[in-house]
């Protein structure tokens, strides 16, 4: 949605000499920190995440960075102007079902809205195809609100927002008292059409404050003012359920930072890829869902901008999950039907597809047919792959990668872990190769091919679903496992090139410092096409005023604020809505509205195919979005000069590895990434070992190290 202009001035802290930006991202396994200041190299810190006391891991990680810089945490924080943070605290609360006992108020007559999940939608939502085909073994996830904690409230608003039945305030007070009596500590409120008329919901919030001041209250019109009562209700419920934990977490973190000498601004990452001041983020727990992957995509976009790639597929494959985000013409798409832990919700969120596939995916044979499958079961972090020697007994994809020569047992993870390849080989031969009637090497090659082919299929499906062609994209490969496969699947997808970013290890933290403070506003109302510019301006005027007031409260100067407007349009009688950027300056003209409609039609055709438009039915605008952003300073990545093409200095020797083109083992050059220099060119077949991952360059491919130390794989 945004054309990015060059980074500008600093945020609120215009204080004495504080010059660092510290960004810490709490991920599922690791907590990463990145520290930068203009004109200084980037510093990195890494530690293990520490659920449920995530703040401990945050300070471990900051300490790790401070150690690398040779300063104390106190010194670093005293010298820091901005702390940017992303955390899995909300995702974790949902995953572990650790949230508050939550009550729910709904419009009388519609008490089952949450629990019946629009029919089977909540039963099959979030399941893989294999499981969908087996309905007898499917169920909804256990709901976050017990059915006996739901109360119907007499009230009714219609589709225009007109009150048909006034709110029964006494019934509200009674219901709240009964829910508190039942032990509820949080309350979600979701009435029909509240996004058009929030009066009744707001009254409930006021009553709750009076009769149960300790109750954590979340009203749907505030948290998700959009149509669709099931998704809106579910969002309010998630926000209530995780709300107190998220708020306590953010407040505690802020306190701890202050205790350790920090006195700048703290910003929290949101799932839509923007930052919010900590105080605002604390009461929007739902916004923090999956903010790590969102930051990853933001980081990828920043890197793409730097490298001149505006079309990027960001693929992240670690031990357990494979995540894909798509950046098209520098823009990010919002997820249409976001889910968290199989719960639907509705909030602006960057579309990142996540499936259970990674190095830990278990390789197994269908006992009936002896055909091998990779996943969906995973050995996870524990016991993990056999070759890690942590008790794993089932062969995983990582074991297969080790068997085909891609990993050096001695220098894995910078030499911190030794791989037991023999154990992997024995188990693989017994469990997989022998039953298949194949030699272990051949079977391992085959499974590597299957894994690469299935990733190809998956990325293809994700891009095609969005009306895009992978051939127009650069692929960014993140995560510990991606680099081992990306040469093969990248070539089959025929992407322009594959980039394994230098910052891959801390990409989410990198994304945090590449993000802006963003407030998202939207209004759901229908305008016909054509509509005069004034009608649209009238909708936006109050939103813009709200945004200015908000920024003012955050002490952010007007000079750094940008507004991006986008409108959802659709053809009448069809269901697909397309968010179309409104390309207009401050003053909206009728000409700009006409261009909006043209853009919509072009986008629609691109996304849904030729002949999909049904103009005769007419068009309408259904949602008006405002993205208000305050531009932040970007990290200055140092671009190195080329040291020449020859990678000789980094050459570690040769090793026999699997080479796809030969369909067998063949000698390949082995390189130490730490000694590769900008400008070096590596000819495949080659394997590059970095401290955090391994990059395989297949025969016929070229690996280049660019000025930012990214590894770029190109095909012939």
């Amino acid at each position, binding site marked *: 949605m945004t054309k990015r202009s060059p980074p500008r001035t600093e945020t609120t802290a215009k204080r004495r000499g504080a010059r660092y930006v510290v960004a810490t991202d709490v991920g599922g396994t690791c907590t990463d920190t990145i520290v930068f200041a203009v004109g200084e190299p980037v510093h990195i810190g890494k530690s293990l995440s520490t659920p449920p006391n995530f703040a401990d891991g945050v300070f471990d990680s900051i300490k790790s960075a401070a150690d690398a810089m040779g300063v104390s945490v106190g010194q670093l924080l005293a010298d820091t102007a901005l702390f940017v943070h992303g955390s899995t605290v909300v995702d974790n609360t949902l995953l572990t079902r650790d949230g508050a006992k939550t009550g729910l108020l709904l419009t*009388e007559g519609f008490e089952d809205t949450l629990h019946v999940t629009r029919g*089977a939608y909540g039963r099959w939502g979030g399941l893989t195809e294999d499981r969908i085909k087996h309905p007898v073994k*499917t169920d909804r996830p256990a709901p976050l609100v017990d059915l006996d904690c739901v109360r119907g409230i007499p009230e009714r608003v219609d589709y225009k927002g007109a009150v048909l039945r006034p709110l029964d305030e006494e019934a509200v007070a009674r219901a709240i008292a009964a829910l508190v009596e039942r032990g509820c500590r949080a309350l979600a409120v979701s009435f029909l059409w509240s996004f058009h008329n929030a009066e009744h919901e707001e009254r409930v919030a006021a009553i709750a404050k009076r009769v149960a001041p300790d109750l954590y209250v979340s009203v749907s019109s505030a948290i998700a003012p959009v149509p*669709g009562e099931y998704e809106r209700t579910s969002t309010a419920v998630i926000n209530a359920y995780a709300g107190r934990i998220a708020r306590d977490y953010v407040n505690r973190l802020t306190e701890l930072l202050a205790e350790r000498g920090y006195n700048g601004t703290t910003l929290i990452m949101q799932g839509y890829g923007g930052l919010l001041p900590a105080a605002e983020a604390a009461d929007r727990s739902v916004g923090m869902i999956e903010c790590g992957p969102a930051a990853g995509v933001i980081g990828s976009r920043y890197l793409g901008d730097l490298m001149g790639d505006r079309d990027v597929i960001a693929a992240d494959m670690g031990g357990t999950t494979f995540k894909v985000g798509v950046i098209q013409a520098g823009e990010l798409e919002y997820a249409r039907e976001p889910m968290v832990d199989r719960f639907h919700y509705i909030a602006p969120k960057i579309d990142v597809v996540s499936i259970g596939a990674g190095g830990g995916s278990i390789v197994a044979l269908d006992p009936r*047919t002896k*055909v091998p499958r990779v996943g969906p079961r995973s050995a996870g972090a524990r016991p993990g792959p056999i070759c890690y020697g942590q008790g794993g007994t089932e062969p995983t994809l990582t074991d297969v990668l080790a068997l085909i020569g891609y990993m050096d047992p001695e220098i894995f993870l910078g030499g911190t872990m030794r791989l037991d390849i023999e154990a992997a080989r024995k188990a693989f031969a017994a469990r997989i190769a022998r039953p298949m009637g194949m030699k272990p090497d051949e079977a391992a090659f085959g499974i590597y091919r299957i894994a690469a082919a299935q990733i190809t299929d998956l990325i293809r*499906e994700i891009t095609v679903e969005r009306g895009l062609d992978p051939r127009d994209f650069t692929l960014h490969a993140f995560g510990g496992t991606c680099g081992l496969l990306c040469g093969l699947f990248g070539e089959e997808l025929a992407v322009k090139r594959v980039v394994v970013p230098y910052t891959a290890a801390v990409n989410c933290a990198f994304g945090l410092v590449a993000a802006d403070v963003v407030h998202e506003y939207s209004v759901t109302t229908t305008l016909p096409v054509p509509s005069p510019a004034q009608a649209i301006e009238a909708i936006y005027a109050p939103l813009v005023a709200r945004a200015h007031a908000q920024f003012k409260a955050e002490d952010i100067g007007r000079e750094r604020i940008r507004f991006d407007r986008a409108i959802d349009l659709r053809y*009448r009688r069809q269901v697909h809505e397309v968010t179309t950027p409104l390309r207009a300056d401050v003053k909206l003209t009728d000409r700009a509205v006409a261009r909006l409609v043209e853009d919509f039609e072009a986008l629609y055709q691109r996304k849904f*195919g030729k002949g999909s438009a049904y103009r005769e039915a007419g068009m309408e605008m259904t949602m008006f979005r405002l993205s208000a952003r305050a531009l932040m300073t970007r990290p200055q990545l140092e671009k190195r000069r080329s040291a020449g093409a020859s990678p000789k200095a980094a050459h570690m020797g040769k090793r026999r590895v699997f080479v796809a083109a030969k369909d067998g083992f063949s000698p390949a050059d082995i390189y130490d990434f730490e000694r590769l220099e900008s400008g070096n060119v590596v000819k495949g077949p080659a394997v590059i070992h970095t401290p955090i991952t391994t990059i395989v360059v297949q025969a016929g491919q070229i690996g280049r190290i660019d000025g930012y130390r990214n590894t770029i794989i190109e095909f012939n």
Partner: protein
Amino acid sequence: MDPITFEIIRHRLYRVVEEAVITLKHVSGSAITNEGHDLMVSLYRADGSLLMGGVGFLHHLTSAAEACKHIIRTFAGNIQEGDVFLLNDPYTAALHTSDIYLVHPIHHKKKLVAWSACFVHVYDIGAMNPGGFSPESRDIYTEGFSSPGIKLVEKGAVRKDVMALLLNMVRSPEMVALDISSMIACGNVARERMLALIDKYGFKTVDQACRSLIDQSETLLRARLKELPDGRWEARQFLDVQGEVYRVTLAMTKKKDTLTFDFTGSSPQSPYGVNCSYWAGWGALFAPIFPLLCYDITWNEGMIRPITMIAPEGTIVNAKRPAPVSIATVGAIQSVNNVACTCIAKMLSASEKYKDEATAVWHGSHVAIFLFGKNQKGGESIGIMTETFGGAGGARAFADGIDLGGEIPNPISRMANVETVEANFPIRYLFRRRTQDSGGAGRFRGGAGGEYAIVPHDAPDGGIHFVVSGKGIQYPMSEGLGGGYPASPCSYQWVHNNEADRARNVDAKFAQSVDEMPGRKEPISWGVFPLMGEDSLFVRWNGGGGYGDPLVRDPAAVLADVQARVVSREIADRIYGVVLNGEASAVDEPATRAQRKALRAARFAKAAE
């Protein structure tokens, strides 16, 4: 063949279907396709046999195979690269006229190598009643446009005369044109992706993989059947229309590695469009077989080989032309689904290994309502009430059925939000919720069905009209399993002048149940009706069947059901024998023991009468 290439090609064939489905949904943009998932895309071999069935309405996988085969027979020598054929005649292969098949031949180097077929439920097909279901029709002639096979696209170019002919016979021709375009685009994508696959691996390898895939499915299903005990199981359904009742009876015989489904004894065909044709009955049989017996097997021709169907001609499950069949998909087809589900479940129950796969019947009867008329924005609205996709899960051997859990033959359906419906139609809901005591009682309870009531709201014409083609009113259709009770039946009530007397009855406007509605209630189920002025329409759909004896249900589960309002106290007491304390916060255990003992004794006493 080598298992690696096989696995890669298998995965990719599946993606071909997926990509084609995406195209279908994208281009069509209709609510029934996108929300109801009322669609299907599958791949077929050069001879028309099913190669790879996708997740959609599963009745169609085998019927579309027959459509391919019929085109092969009738257009022999005239099937060219880039052709597309349209077929929707139920007496040739389709289910009913409004589910149009488009059949695409796929040529590689001038040779016919495969087919793709797809369908969507088109906006209208020109039958007596709008929307496809035509309750007033008494023969196929009045059920709209019907083609036993016609070339719609010739060598890549749409035959404008044919398209004009079709569009000339339907309401909302623009929307039907869009539906047709979506299917053409879908087939083009399937062809393109299939050819890319052949280009990469070579025709011989792909062909071999396809053959192996089919053989593998056959081997797997036969192996599974061998693991199951031989036997013969019976099931029966009553299908009531307009007060008349028809039987669908099934005797399923399993012998070694074969299954025979015998419908002998089913009622003669009906004058109403609930009948189904042979291929519809055949497809209806497979819809439960795929997910209940073959959940881990690729859905293709191989699974069809071990299976035989006997369906006497002229019966409700194999009607003779010109019997009407436009309601088949929510008529006899559903009854065939249900009896097949029951017999398969009984067979699974007789196996130690597979007994947990058994399920009582899900969502025995649809509640098909089509609304049509002028909406609050002045435009025309036509569309299905998607609550019919809400469904209800049958109880299982290890767990309750899922409340509003959908249905077996359409694994990924869903219903629209109330707000979506109120935004697009000039109606307002009074309530929409699970129906108390609707799931069949049992050790595991059947999933609850639902109920709703609507009234006109801001309608420029004072209201709207609707087509209803209901069955399952007099008879429960979601049978129980192993002692589980059948679920409650469906109900449609036209409540006259419900809101007229507002002065005396302010709350009537917001009635919370059909009992609270003061208007005169007229049961309806068949035909076209107005929803005007102060009237309202109440619809209730069935739950899922129960599993096992209700008297051994865990009392704590009954308590939870009562607290969640899914089961009434009365039924907890009378059917489950569970007595709760005064405020229904706990089970009264001594009273429960006594009540259960009394109910057991009564079982003998009653019998002695």
